[in-house]
């Protein structure tokens, strides 16, 4: 299983829709301070079902909606779609290509879709449960967070081995 692509619209600083196609090897994301690079990894965490606004650097979930600039007004929703190739069926679902979509409106209402089929947040969590891509996995290391791996107090370490087991 690997990431094919990502689409963002209205997510944080990505007011206009953008899409990325990932290399099967190494994809680098570069740019000046504050340009939006970490916002892209926030988008991936979010579409995979992140529930903590704090992990996404906000105070509430609606903080991920583009909130305007001095020249543009805020948008009414944020939407992210992640496309994965699933020929090995590592995701326990019949499809060979899986598109996960998450959308949130300024009203607070949320929508979740798997291959355009509405589902619950719970279904997205269950889909990725055995892939190590969950929130306790080591698949996403945030900015400034690499040293945390060294603080192996017994609670943290139990997590490493339980995740790894």
């Amino acid at each position, binding site marked *: 299983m*690997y990431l094919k692509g990502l689409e963002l619209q209205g997510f944080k600083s990505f007011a206009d829709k953008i899409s990325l196609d990932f290399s099967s090897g*190494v*994809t680098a*994301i570069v740019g000046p301070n504050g340009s939006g690079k970490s916002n892209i990894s926030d988008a991936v965490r979010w579409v995979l079902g992140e529930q903590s606004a704090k992990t996404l650097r906000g105070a509430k979930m609606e903080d991920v909606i583009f909130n305007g*600039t001095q020249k543009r007004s805020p948008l009414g929703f944020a939407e992210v779609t992640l496309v994965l190739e699933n020929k090995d069926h590592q995701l326990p679902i019949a499809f060979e290509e899986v598109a996960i979509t998450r959308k949130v409106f300024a009203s607070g209402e949320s929508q979740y879709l798997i291959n355009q089929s509405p589902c619950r947040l719970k279904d997205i969590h269950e889909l990725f449960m055995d892939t190590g891509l969950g929130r306790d996995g080591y698949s996403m290391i945030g900015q400034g967070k690499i040293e945390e791996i060294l603080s192996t107090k017994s609670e943290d370490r139990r997590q490493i081995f339980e995740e790894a087991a």
Partner: protein
Amino acid sequence: MKEQFSEKFEQINRYFKTTFVELFGGGSAELALTDAQNILECGINIDVQPPGKKLQSLSLLSGGERALSAIALLFAILRTRPTPFCFLDEIEAALDDVNVYRFADYVKNYSKKTQFIIVTHRRGTMESADVIYGVTMQEKGVSKLLQLNLNEIAG
């Protein structure tokens, strides 16, 4: 339960000893349980010895040595518990240029089995990439994306 834990611990430890030496170009490192009688609850010590130096507490290591040790441990965990892809956001910020190249080469090799998406400011890391996306804010506050070639990036 205890056995499964112990087995996983040994596996991560074995990988860590290797990844450390690969990234530091020498030295040695290992994980040690603080209480072999109570492995499900005791702490873990991380013993690290950069090349030529003596074994010392992790806290005395430099910022860059700690970051590189953390990266070695991360890769040991990833080898024990592979994930299909891995997103890294500026994890090599504290490394000097020589160490950035060691890190970049390591990722390049590892990327045969695992897909990496790396946010970076460092040239060495960019050179290991197959695809580079540039994020810009020509219109202030609004992000745009464009695909880049290495030779288009200044610096």
